[in-house]
């Protein structure tokens, strides 16, 4: 944890959601994977939502990565993403299939992966 790097975000967090109080569906995980849906972008798209789709131009990002790049709090990004999901302009998937979390095989893959990188 460090102090602030850089200055103010372009869009204040309280304006970025366009007045949406919160996501109207199950909250996205910090590590939910977001990608732009292959759909034309409506002309009336709020700037903040457009900015989110823009950072997803080059590929997928997690919620927390998109929040960091757009310099928004995670909660604001979650609301933006929820609005885009509702309009089917965004795709999301959970970080790990629920049944797989803390699966011994997954843990072993993490251990083996770290071991291979250390060499």
């Amino acid at each position, binding site marked *: 944890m460090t102090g602030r790097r850089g200055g103010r975000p372009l869009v204040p967090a309280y304006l970025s959601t366009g007045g949406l109080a919160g996501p109207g569906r199950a909250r996205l995980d910090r590590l939910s994977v977001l990608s732009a849906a292959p759909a034309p972008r409506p002309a009336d798209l709020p700037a903040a939502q457009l900015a989110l789709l823009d950072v997803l131009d080059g590929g997928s990002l997690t919620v927390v*990565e998109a929040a960091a*790049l757009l310099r928004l709090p995670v909660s604001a990004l979650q609301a933006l993403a929820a609005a885009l999901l509702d309009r089917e302009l965004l795709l999301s998937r959970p970080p790990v299939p629920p049944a797989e979390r803390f699966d011994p095989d997954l843990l072993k893959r993490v251990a083996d992966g770290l071991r291979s990188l250390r060499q």
Partner: protein
Amino acid sequence: MVSAPSGSSGVHLPDTAGDLVKILVAGPFGVGKTTLIDSVSEIRPLHTEERLTEASAPTDDLDGVREKTTTTVAVDFGRISLPDGVVLYLFGAPGQARFRPLWDDLAHGALGALVLVDSRRVDASFDALELVEETGLPYAVAFNAFPDAPRHHTPAQLRAALDLEPATPMVTCDARDAASSLGALLALVQRLVDRHPSEPR
């Protein structure tokens, strides 16, 4: 097509990304959390600004209603793409008890925590240790090897000072060094592999 903001290139997830998991890197200010994350992360250091509304008094306090204060804290994170499609995220978790709500949010779904300790001020990590234990996260302890750290303590003395269970991994690492940091993370994950999870958390 509008181009993405400058500097975001190279941040996107690899196409091979499958399962995304996370580990918390916990400890007090200045213990080397950010240094460790940066030494192993494949993406440039990123952080989010997290706003906290802190209730300044417990609910059963009889002194009357006190003001709530909102503070902002930066949470650093990094990413390691492992072979086999697993992507490991590391989150720097503030170790102070007053960040409990943020802590719970970060800990949700985490595999475990690596608690960093500065052997020059062991007691500064007590809060972080208490938080991981309260959250029920499996953890390992890593002493960040500062050059002027005292070297006369035996592992047994350090274990006693931190009141660690015998099975809790305790290692020394140099947070500036990627291989050393990966070794500390491995000590935690190997512990998770070794213990037979009888019930999902």
